[in-house]
C-alpha cells in the first residue's frame, strides 16, 4: 500500500494545508521564546546615542525567513534613540531588497530620522569575513563611500565611529560565526543574529556560551518580534500556515510509523 502511494496527492494536500489558514487565519496565540526576548531586551537597554551596526544581507531565497525579522528589528531600532550603520555583507541582493521591500515597510520610521546623522547605508561590500575584519578594525579604511557616493569622512555619523570599539551592538543576517569571530571575540561587541529557522538548533551553543546576545531564527521568531514591538506584519500573517504545515508533517511521521509497524506485524517489510 505504501509503495503504491503517489506523492503528488500529498503535494496537493500540502497546498491546501498551507493555503487554507492564509485565506482564513486561525489567530493562534504565539509564546515568546528566550532568544527573541533577549534581543528585544538588549535593544531596549541600549543607552541613548549608542551605535549599532545592522547587516541587512537578505537574499531573495531567504526573504520569507530574514525579511520580516529585518523589518521588525529595524522598526524597533528606529523607534529608539540609537544611531544605525547599515551594510550588506552576506549577499549583493541585500541593497535591492532593502530598497524595494524593507525601506517601504519602515518608511514611516525613517521619516523621523535624518540620513547621515541618525543612520547611514554603505550598501553591499564584497569580501564577507575578510571585509568584516577590515571594517571592525578601521571603518574609515575599509569603507570609502556610502551607498549614495558620499565619502565616509563627510558623513556626520561616522565622525566619531572609527572601529568596532565604538559599536554597542552588531545585528547581522545569515551566519553568526564570522561575526562572533570578527566582532565579539576580538572587541567584545555583543552580536545578535537573524538567521534561518533551521540554524536555530545549531546556534544554541553560542547562546548558551553568551557569544550571541539574541537570535531571531526564521519566520516564527520574526512573528514573535512583531508581537513584542506590537507591529504585526508579514510574519504574523503566515504564523497559522506554519502551525498547520508543521502539524501535518508531525502527523505524517506518526501515521507512517504506525502503518510500518502494522505491516511488520503482519509479516511484511
Amino acid at each position, binding site marked *: 500500500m505504501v509503495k503504491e502511494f503517489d506523492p503528488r496527492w500529498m503535494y496537493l494536500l500540502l497546498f491546501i494545508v498551507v493555503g487554507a489558514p492564509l485565506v482564513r487565519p486561525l489567530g493562534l496565540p504565539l*509564546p515568546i521564546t528566550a532568544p527573541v526576548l533577549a534581543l528585544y531586551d538588549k535593544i531596549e537597554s541600549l543607552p541613548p546615542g549608542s551605535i549599532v551596526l545592522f547587516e541587512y544581507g537578505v537574499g531573495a531565497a531567504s526573504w520569507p525567513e530574514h525579511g520580516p525579522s529585518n523589518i521588525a528589528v529595524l522598526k524597533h531600532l528606529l523607534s529608539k534613540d540609537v544611531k544605525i550603520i547599515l551594510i550588506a555583507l552576506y549577499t549583493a541582493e541585500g541593497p*535591492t531588497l532593502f530598497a*524595494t521591500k524593507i525601506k517601504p515597510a519602515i518608511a514611516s520610521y525613517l521619516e523621523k530620522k535624518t540620513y547621515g546623522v541618525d543612520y547611514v547605508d554603505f550598501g553591499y561590500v564584497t569580501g564577507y569575513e575578510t571585509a568584516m575584519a577590515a571594517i571592525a578594525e578601521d571603518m574609515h579604511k575599509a569603507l570609502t563611500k556610502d551607498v549614495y557616493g558620499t565619502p565616509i569622512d563627510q558623513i556626520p555619523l561616522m565622525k566619531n565611529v572609527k572601529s568596532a570599539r565604538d559599536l554597542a551592538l552588531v545585528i547581522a543576517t545569515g551566519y553568526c560565526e564570522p561575526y562572533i569571530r570578527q566582532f565579539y571575540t576580538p572587541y567584545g561587541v555583543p552580536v545578535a543574529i537573524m538567521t534561518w529557522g533551521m540554524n536555530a538548533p545549531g546556534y544554541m551553543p553560542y547562546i548558551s556560551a553568551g557569544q550571541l546576545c539574541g537570535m531571531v531564527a526564521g519566520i516564527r521568531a520574526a512573528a514573535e518580534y512583531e508581537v513584542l514591538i506590537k507591529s504585526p506584519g508579514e510574519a504574523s500573517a503566515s504564523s497559522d500556515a*506554519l502551525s498547520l504545515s508543521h502539524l501535518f508533517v508531525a502527523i505524517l511521521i506518526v501515521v507512517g510509523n504506525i502503518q510500518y509497524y502494522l505491516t511488520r506485524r503482519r509479516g511484511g517489510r
Partner: protein
Amino acid sequence: MSWARRRELPLFLSAILGIMAFADYFFDIPVLHSVVSDLQVWIIILAAFAMFMGVINLTIVHGRVVMREKDIIRRGLSAWTLFLMYLMAILGLLPPITAHPSFRWLYSTTVAALDPTVYSILAFYITSASYRAFRARNIETMIFLIAGIIVILYNAPIGGYLHPGIVTLGSWAMNVPIVAGQRAIMVGAAIGALALAIRTFTGRESAWLRAGGGG
C-alpha cells in the same frame, strides 16, 4: 618564466600571507598590522573581481551549447539564459549603478519570485519523506524521530496551544541535549578548520591549486 609556473610559489605565498594575517591578531607589530590591514582591503577588491567568474563560466558553458547543440530546445534555453544574463548586467550598469529602476524591476519580477520558490520545493519532498521514509527501525532512528517531532511541534505556534508541555519540552530539547550535540559538532568542525589552516600555513594544502588547471 617556467619558475613562475611552479606550484610551490603560490603555495609559499598563501602560507606566508596566512601566517601574517594569523600573527597580526596575537602580536602588536605596527608594520605587520599596517600590511595585514591593507591586505584585508585587497581581498575586498579581489572578491569583487571574483564575482565576474560566474558570468564568464556561464558564457562559456551556454555559449558552447548555443554553438554546438543539435536539440533546438536546449539551444533556445541556453540562448535565453545568455540573453537575460547580459541584459541584467547592462541594466545594472545604467546610472545610478545598481539602482536603476529597470534593474530593480527585473530583479523583483524574476529572482525575488524564483529563488524562494526553488528552495521551497524541498517542503514537498520533506513532507513526502516524512510519511514514506522516516521509520523508527532502531533506537537511533527512534531518538531522531522523537527529537524531530518535539522540535517540529515546538516550532509551530500550535504546539503550545495543543499542550503547554510541548513548549517546555521543546525548550528543554533546544537548551540541553541539542546544545550538547551541536557543541560537539561545532568543536569537531573547528578542529577540522584549524587543521586545514595549519596545512595552508605549512604549504601542504594544495586542493585550491587544482582549480587553476594548466601546468
